[in-house]
């Protein structure tokens, strides 16, 4: 009987320790993001330097969903623009794995409210037709590295601020692309599978402690 009690005590102690430690680990770990609802914000892609080119602010409207772990084409179709000198047609924001980038992913830290999103597979493409010069096409990455921002764990509201520069070496020339803007909306996070595993030892610990007290 004493051996059984000892075993129960050890099991209960171990489970309690695991539950406590696991809870500590859980609070320090991040949760994967399953989806970004982008309800506001705008992006500007510009080439720095004299005579630079800029897309101007591309408003994210209507709101879009960016589903993590999958490629989407399009994420957002931009409206066509026509003027007397030409037109912009077929512009869109999309994600692709064609060039080796990983599908969009992200992590959210409920403890600190930090949000990190990897959207390096997201690109901007479109055509610009000039009456005088003909039709030009463009297909460029929007983000050179993961984006950082903040979110509110309770509501999931987030804000991402973007200010990235990619310098291209076209010897003997060089060219810098500058992406600026903000993205805001709501983020959905997935509970970690580890949370379930941590809950089970915690419950076992409680049962063990209760049985130990009953036995006394």
């Amino acid at each position: 009987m004493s051996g059984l009690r000892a075993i129960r005590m050890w099991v209960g102690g171990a489970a309690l320790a695991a539950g406590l430690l696991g809870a500590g680990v859980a609070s320090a770990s991040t949760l994967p993001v399953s989806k970004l609802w982008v309800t506001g914000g705008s992006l500007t892609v510009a080439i720095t330097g004299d005579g630079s080119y800029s897309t101007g602010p591309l408003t994210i409207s209507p709101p879009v969903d960016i589903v993590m772990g999958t490629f989407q084409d399009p994420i957002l179709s931009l409206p066509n623009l026509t003027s007397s000198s030409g037109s912009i047609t077929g512009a869109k924001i999309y994600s692709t794995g064609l060039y080796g980038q990983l599908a969009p992913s992200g992590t959210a830290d409920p403890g600190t409210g930090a949000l990190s999103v990897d959207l390096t597979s997201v690109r901007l493409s479109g055509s610009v037709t000039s009456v005088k010069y003909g039709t030009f096409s463009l297909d460029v990455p929007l983000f050179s590295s993961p984006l950082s921002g903040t979110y509110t764990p309770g509501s999931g509201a987030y804000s991402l601020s973007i200010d990235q520069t990619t310098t291209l070496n076209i010897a003997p020339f060089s060219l810098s692309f500058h992406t600026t803007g903000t993205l805001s909306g709501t983020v959905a996070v997935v509970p970690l599978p580890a949370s379930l595993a941590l809950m089970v030892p915690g419950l076992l610990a409680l049962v063990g402690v209760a049985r130990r007290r009953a036995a006394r």
Partner: protein
Amino acid sequence: MDARLPIREGTARAAGRAGAVAGAFLTGTFAVLANLLLPAAAHATPIPLQTLVVSTFTLHVDSPALGSGDFPVPAGALPADLRLGVYQDPILHLGGGPTDVRVFSAPGPDGLPAPSATADAATGTLAVDFRSLQVATRIDSPAGPFLFGGPFVPLTLPPATDLYDPATGAFSLTWDATVPAVVGIPVPGDLRVRMAGTAVPASIPEPAVPALLLAGVLGAYAGRRRRGIASPPGC
């Protein structure tokens, strides 16, 4: 009646001979003149070209955003054949390292005609239509490739400085243009394009050649007839 007949026959024969000689002379003169004049006319007519074998190619760029310099031409890229009358992809690759600029010809969304060129031997000049020359530029980066495409030259090509040597087929073509996108990259700049090499005429015979051949044959035939009439057998 019978005594006069030989006289009349002789007169008629003499008149016929004189007419034939005059006709043959006129025909021969016409043929000789045609052979002299038509080749000159043929030379004055621009000769359609089949291929421009480009052995020298430079693309100088002056752009506030990019800088100034010559776009590099990779080793082994030249000579390159620029085929005329057909669309061709690729024609030439420029750049180096992470940058590749593919020059090709395509109708594009505007349905532009295939590149064409004619050489005028009389003036030693070329006339080209390169509106369908396009570029596809890829610049690799850790964030993924930056892809650009567009016309290589403006739809209305500015006047070119061009030279053609009919004896050797050597040509050179130079033009300057201010464009809103340098090799498709949306930055404005001034381009100076120069290509030189050998022009290959189209293998299809000119329409004037059969006419010249026919005139020559007629001239030769008339010349033989004239000689035959001038010294008839037995005279």
